[in-house]
């Protein structure tokens, strides 16, 4: 009997720990689930956007309509967990929410590029994410999530460029106000007009120029760096193939891409 009493010496302490840990695990699970749902919806938004064939123009109505349900899903998830991600907890659960934030950033950044042919800045992206929770405090978009989302977005630019080359036989270009004609691919090498590839190269240079220091972020960034570089090279190879084969390409021809669009498979995963 006395032994049993002694066995209970630490029980109140452990009961307190249990309550605290349960609260923590429940919150973590809610955030993980929301992050997964945000990721899934963002991927679907990207699929729809990949069917858009215009650049530097508003997203066509069919795509806007198709994506509405996914935007709504993201808004619902963000509102559901924004209270769990305030103060101390913003960084505590960063690992749980970062996946969703990055994927959302990738989608938002890709859409912004299709609409405006420019890169969505961190401030603007953070503002957009905050607006998804109009009645709450919103979720914070860390600079790290922003960069990692930009890395992934280059993969979308690669798919967009290659799809365009396969279907229309040319690299999507950004028409400067002076030239109204679509760029002729045969002159691509000699003309300095902006196109998806020049933008990808600009992004690549900017990302390569970043000194990410050390730590978990540097590790993530260096992994994505390789994928990003491969994406740029895939478009370069595809453009080379397009120039060399030129008009000879048979119907249904696809640009030769080493690795059979491995990145595209990854995105779908």
């Amino acid at each position, binding site marked *: 009997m006395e032994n049993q009493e002694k*066995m209970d010496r630490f029980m109140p*302490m452990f009961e307190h720990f249990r309550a605290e840990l349960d609260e923590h*695990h429940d919150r973590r699970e809610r955030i993980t689930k929301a992050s997964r749902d945000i990721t899934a919806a963002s991927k679907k938004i990207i699929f729809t956007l990949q069917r858009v064939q215009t650049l530097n123009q508003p997203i066509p109505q069919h795509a806007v309509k198709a994506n509405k349900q996914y935007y709504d899903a993201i808004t619902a998830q963000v509102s559901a967990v924004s209270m769990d991600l305030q103060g101390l907890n913003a960084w505590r659960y960063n690992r749980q929410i970062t996946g969703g934030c990055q994927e959302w950033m990738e989608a938002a950044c890709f859409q912004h590029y299709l609409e405006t042919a420019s890169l969505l*800045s961190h401030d603007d992206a953070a503002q957009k994410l905050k607006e998804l929770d109009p009645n709450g405090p919103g979720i914070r978009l860390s600079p790290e999530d922003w960069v990692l989302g930009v890395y992934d977005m280059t993969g979308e630019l690669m798919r967009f460029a290659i799809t365009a080359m396969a279907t229309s036989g040319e690299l999507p270009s950004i028409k400067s106000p002076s030239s109204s004609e679509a760029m002729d691919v045969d002159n691509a090498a000699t003309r300095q007009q*902006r196109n998806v590839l020049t*933008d990808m190269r600009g992004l690549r240079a900017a990302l390569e120029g970043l000194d990410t*220091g050390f730590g978990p972020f540097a590790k993530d960034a260096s992994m994505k760096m390789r994928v990003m570089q491969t994406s740029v090279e895939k478009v370069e190879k595809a453009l080379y193939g397009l120039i060399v084969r030129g008009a000879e390409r048979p119907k249904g021809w696809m640009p030769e891409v080493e690795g059979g669009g491995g990145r595209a498979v990854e995105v779908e995963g």
Partner: protein
Amino acid sequence: MAVNSDGMIESGIFESLQRKIDDDSAVKDALRDIVQELEKQGKEDALFFVCSTDRHRSDNAVHTLKSSLHRIRRPYVSQPCSQQWQLTANTEVAVPSVVSSAQANIDREVQTIHKLSETASKEPYYKFNYAWTRQIQDACSSILLCGWLGGFGKSLAGQLLTIEDVGQAMGVPVNLKDRDAFHLTIEEYLQALISLLDELARLARNSVTLGDYRRPQLIAQFIKEVHAGFQILNLKNDTLRKRSDGIKYRVKEVEDVVYDLR
């Protein structure tokens, strides 16, 4: 950074990002220096592992908590048998000197923890806590061991310092929820508690070797109680869960020692 202004990238975007990364790197550098200092001080608590395998080193080694603890001998070691339990008085005398020298070492660690707390509290706690959590766990387990041996105002051996006691010893808040500052977390305390049990399981065997036959019983009782506590926790599949799964083996180890003494 060469970014053409007429390209897709508005100028300044990556420059301001680089500044943020550089600021973080400066914080990480400052933290790393402090954590390395703490790590060095903490290692002195764990010299026993070196001492027990390396004679040369043990001659010069700083006599710190764990190294001294496992070597405390009674002047006269008699045959192990149950009647010898009353002869443990000598060890009881010897331990306070270990505790006081250990506490002096811990005091130095606490100074470093204050420095860490000051620097770390300027940043979001969980942004960088990966940089120090292991060293803080080690410091916490040294404090727990010292407390178990009768240090930190626990005049009796076999007592457990609570997370609040450890926080007080470290001079930092514990389990903070309402504000973002440096603190000791429940997970860190529990990890340190498991390390304490690992250490006590060794101590149970080594106590017998050194002629102390009462301490294993005290340890067995203590480990069983803590084990019962861990069993009511709903742990997820993480490192805490994995390590706490090992407690039952410590229970058995120490019970075997107690059984051998019967």
